[in-house]
């Protein structure tokens, strides 16, 4: 573990922290309402750490769902991380299994997106990525604890709080738009995702839209070998 890199990663997590604390509070409040205790809610944020599926799970618990359907739903909602993990893998070479597991366990939509805003910073620097991820999770756990303990006193749906994470993702998406092909990929993925969300359960819309739009991007760039080879410019990590 390299502490200067860890600290740098930690600092780059600040925009995520800004979004995770209020959303974590909202989760804590709902978890208590669904019948979980404060410790159980905090344990879920600590051990599972998957925002979207945690919200769905407390919803299902409140409705009295059995455990097996809950676990299956969690799996389907989190399958999208398969794509993110594959993408992140191209920036690392042969880490120890422990290091790989630590990075994998902490991979979320938000930390992935921040890392991809400037992937040069993570090439061969797992400590940077880990700092970014751990800081994000600490915010998530703190938010959960605040919501679970002080829930009735806090109202996380007021002010501009519901728009914190959408704004973060909009900015992260803009940072990805390097040329016209990326803009087209964005439009294809966005429109397909909205359409498939209307048709399919779980988070299948994310997986299908991301795969199809990536395919469209590769097709658009089929004559531009330079662009799609960028990912390969990765040194030994």
């Amino acid at each position: 573990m390299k502490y200067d890199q860890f600290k740098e990663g930690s600092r780059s997590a600040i925009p995520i922290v800004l979004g995770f604390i209020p959303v974590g509070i909202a989760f804590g409040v709902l978890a208590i309402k669904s019948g979980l205790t404060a410790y159980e809610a905090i344990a879920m944020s600590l051990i599972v750490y998957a925002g979207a599926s945690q919200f769905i799970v407390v919803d299902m618990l409140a409705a009295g769902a059995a455990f097996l359907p809950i676990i299956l739903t969690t799996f389907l909602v989190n399958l999208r991380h398969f794509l993110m993990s594959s993408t992140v893998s191209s920036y690392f070479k042969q880490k120890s299994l422990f290091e790989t597991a630590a990075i994998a366990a902490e991979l979320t939509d938000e930390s992935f997106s921040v890392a991809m805003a400037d992937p040069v910073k993570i090439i061969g620097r797992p400590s940077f990525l880990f700092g970014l991820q751990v800081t994000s999770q600490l915010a998530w756990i703190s938010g959960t604890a605040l919501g679970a303990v002080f829930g009735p006193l806090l109202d996380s749906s007021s002010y501009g709080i519901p728009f914190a994470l959408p704004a973060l993702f909009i900015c992260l998406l803009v940072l990805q738009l390097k040329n016209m092909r990326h803009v087209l990929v964005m439009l294809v993925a966005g429109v397909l995702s909205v359409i498939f969300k209307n048709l399919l359960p779980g988070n299948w819309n994310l997986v299908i839209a991301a795969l199809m739009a990536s395919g469209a991007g590769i097709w658009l760039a089929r004559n531009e070998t330079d662009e799609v080879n960028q990912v390969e410019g990765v040194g030994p990590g």
Partner: protein
Amino acid sequence: MRLSILLLIFGMAAVTFLPRFIPLALFTRWSLPEGVRRALHFMPTAIMAAIVFPVLFSSPEGNIIFEPRLVLAAVPVFIFSVRVKNLWGAVVLGMIVYWALGFFLR
């Protein structure tokens, strides 16, 4: 802490961990086939767009919606992000605009 809930949490953790872990464990050891590598080039853009658009244009149940407060808050954040490219600023601006729009809309 009830044992049943703890088991549920570990079950959820296992199925969440595997899709996050398997690609990283495999592809940091054996490189991806050339075709797959190429396909990953547009993946960040595609995933983020697939996350953002439903936030703005889908109801939680999946219906296609148009909610002026969300869309009107997204526009300045988008323009600010293109010009300034600052995450912090985008988050704060988005929260302020969304909050302010709440006085006029819904």
